[in-house]
């Protein structure tokens, strides 16, 4: 028979201290891979240039007495071609362009296209970043909940309460007459809330009714993912058009609407990542240590889920810029006189044969910026793809 004592384990040697491999941080490794992708580098460079231009544009075209005034009308100087000299004798001193020539020509009102492009760059940049910021925020939030708490069920009383509060919100929004009923509804909702908090007290007589209220309906995951499916059913551009038609035109509304109609992809990403992450041993270890849910989500899981989100966000910025340009082109975007690349393009289309620069300059600018974000995003994706690391 096998005896434990006979098994020679004693001559296993114990090494005292493990030595370590040479140092190479994640960032270095990332950069090493990333810089091999020429197109992505080009994308990054253009992105940085665009960022600087837009920032400069903000400072140079705004304020009381801007260096480049995008709103200054010189009717005698309309439709001048790029690099043409201004006719000094017909202009007031403050109407002479700062750099001495019309770098990008003038439009049908004699406004300096260069100044307008600078102003538009800032609009494009902010629309891109703010809209994507909103969509990423909503996406991470929804996806995180669906992935981490998804298996929990929503009870009937939760639904009732949300419906009541929602109705109250609408009534308040609708004006004075309805506010009275809104208060009633809020009151009902708080009664419901009270019931919920009495959960532990085990009310005797009420328990039957309460039992009905506590009935499970669908899981949180199902709810969120069905909302995503529904949102994806709408062709998003037409959804945006519809909403924009109802709301007052302003740059902030555009940002918010683009953001709120493009979070679905991020939600799916984050949910999928969370579903696989929450089963991983390091998350289990964190739970076993007693780390709280909040910290597990944001400190342990989110950094591991953020890479694909970052990639889709970068490409999302391009989409948002394009959407804003499209909206402005159709006249639903940022209201004039504020210049955006989309409405410069739109104004220029009437003079496409007389003044082709009015369409080509904003068109090419949009093309380059969108392309650079796409290239950069794809470079990021390739670099962050773990399978690629093995190849190098």
């Amino acid at each position: 028979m096998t005896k434990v004592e006979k098994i020679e384990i004693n001559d296993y040697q114990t090494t005292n201290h493990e030595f370590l491999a040479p140092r190479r941080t994640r960032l270095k490794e990332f950069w090493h891979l990333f810089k091999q992708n020429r197109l992505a580098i080009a994308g990054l460079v253009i992105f940085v240039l665009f960022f600087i231009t837009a920032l400069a544009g903000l400072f140079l075209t705004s304020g009381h007495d801007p260096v480049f005034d995008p709103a200054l009308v010189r009717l005698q100087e309309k439709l001048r071609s790029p690099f043409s000299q201004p006719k000094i004798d017909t202009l007031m001193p403050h109407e002479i362009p700062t750099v001495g020539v019309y770098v990008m020509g003038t439009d049908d009102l004699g406004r300096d296209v260069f100044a307008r492009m600078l102003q538009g760059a800032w609009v494009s940049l902010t629309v891109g970043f703010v809209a994507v910021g909103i969509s990423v925020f909503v996406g991470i939030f929804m996806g995180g909940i669906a992935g981490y708490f998804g298996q929990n069920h929503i009870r009937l009383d939760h639904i009732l309460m949300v419906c009541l509060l929602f109705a109250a919100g609408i009534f308040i929004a609708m004006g004075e007459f309805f506010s009275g009923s809104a208060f009633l509804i809020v009151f009902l909702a708080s009664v419901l809330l009270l019931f919920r908090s009495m959960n532990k007290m085990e009310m005797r007589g009420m328990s039957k009714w309460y039992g009905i209220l506590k009935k499970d309906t669908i899981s949180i995951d199902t709810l969120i993912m069905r909302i995503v499916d529904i949102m994806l059913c709408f062709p998003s551009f037409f959804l945006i058009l519809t909403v924009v038609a109802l709301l007052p035109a302003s740059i902030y509304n555009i940002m918010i609407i683009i953001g709120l109609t493009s979070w679905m992809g991020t939600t799916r990403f984050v949910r999928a990542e969370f579903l696989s992450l929450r089963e991983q041993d390091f998350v289990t270890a964190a739970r076993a240590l007693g780390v709280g849910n909040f910290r597990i989500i944001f400190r342990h899981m989110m950094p591991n889920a953020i890479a694909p989100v970052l990639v889709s966000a970068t490409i999302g910025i391009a989409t948002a810029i394009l959407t804003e340009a499209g909206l402005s082109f159709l006249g639903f975007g940022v209201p004039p006189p504020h210049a955006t690349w989309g409405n410069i393009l739109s104004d220029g289309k009437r003079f496409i044969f007389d003044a082709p620069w009015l369409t080509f300059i904003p068109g090419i600018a949009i093309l380059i910026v969108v392309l650079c974000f796409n290239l950069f995003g794809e470079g990021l994706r390739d670099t962050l793809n773990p399978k690629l690391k093995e190849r190098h």
Partner: protein
Amino acid sequence: MEQTISSNNSVLKVNGLKKYFPVRRGFFQRIGGWIKAVDGVAFEIEQAKTLGLVGESGCGKSTVARLILKLLEADAGQIAYRGRDISKSSEKDIKPLRKEMQIVFQDPYGSLNPRMTAGQSIEEGLRISGVPGKKRKERIDRLLNMVGMSYGSADRYPHEFSGGQRQRIGIARALSVEPSLIICDEPISALDVSIQAQIINLLKDLQDELGLSYLFISHDLNVVGYLSDQVAVMYLGHIMEYSRTAELFENPLHPYTLALLSSVPVPEPGQKLRMQSLKGDVPSALDPPPGCKFQGRCTLVEEQCRNQEIDFYDAGEGHMVRCWKVVKK
């Protein structure tokens, strides 16, 4: 509410532990059957002792670990930590006890957060134990030193370490909250043989030094025999045999234990084996047949084994076994 199960020296006592997983089928996700992953498991771990839990893949070892750590809710049974039943306690009640029981995982690659340095991973434990920020760095270095990692490991990310080194960091993380029981869920099966020995010796040294208790899960009877004071042999959610290590190796009673022992490499080549090695795969834990769970693969199977449910039987001096053959003798 909380029931006390008195026992003088026991750190953990588990009794009648059950976990059935529902199997959902079809479009409406109706429950179509139950996987009896853990079906009435009972054992006890004493202070500074090691219990080895052996069994083939899928027999429910990891599920037992997760149940004890309250990462899964048990369907039935008691889990008594130092006499206090925690099986029904809520997450809030359990929080202070979380520090007492820790786990070391099988997969060294999945058990460390790839976006946290070794030091940050360990720091999570120190934060939980309320070690003030200033003292943490020193403690991290001390813990890493304790598990045999060199100075400077704290700032490195998991991908910069080898499997064995990661396992050491995993152990350091478990030690960071100063637990009294560590569940080692196959901590060495993913490692190279020479590294296995190092980790085993590290675990043993730590036990001597800190007075830790271990629940050591493995499918390798050899390793379990070396490390454990007691061994529980598990099969399809049941514990088949449970006794002191020396007793189990000298006088194995259950046919399954015999089969497992015969698959342990024997130091003396000429030695005769009492039973052939196991044939076939572990049957599914989904709706197992009545009677003994091992009936399908047992060479000594009889009529009684097929129909009659079998209970633990004490074959003397706490050598528990679950086999009709032994009962009849």
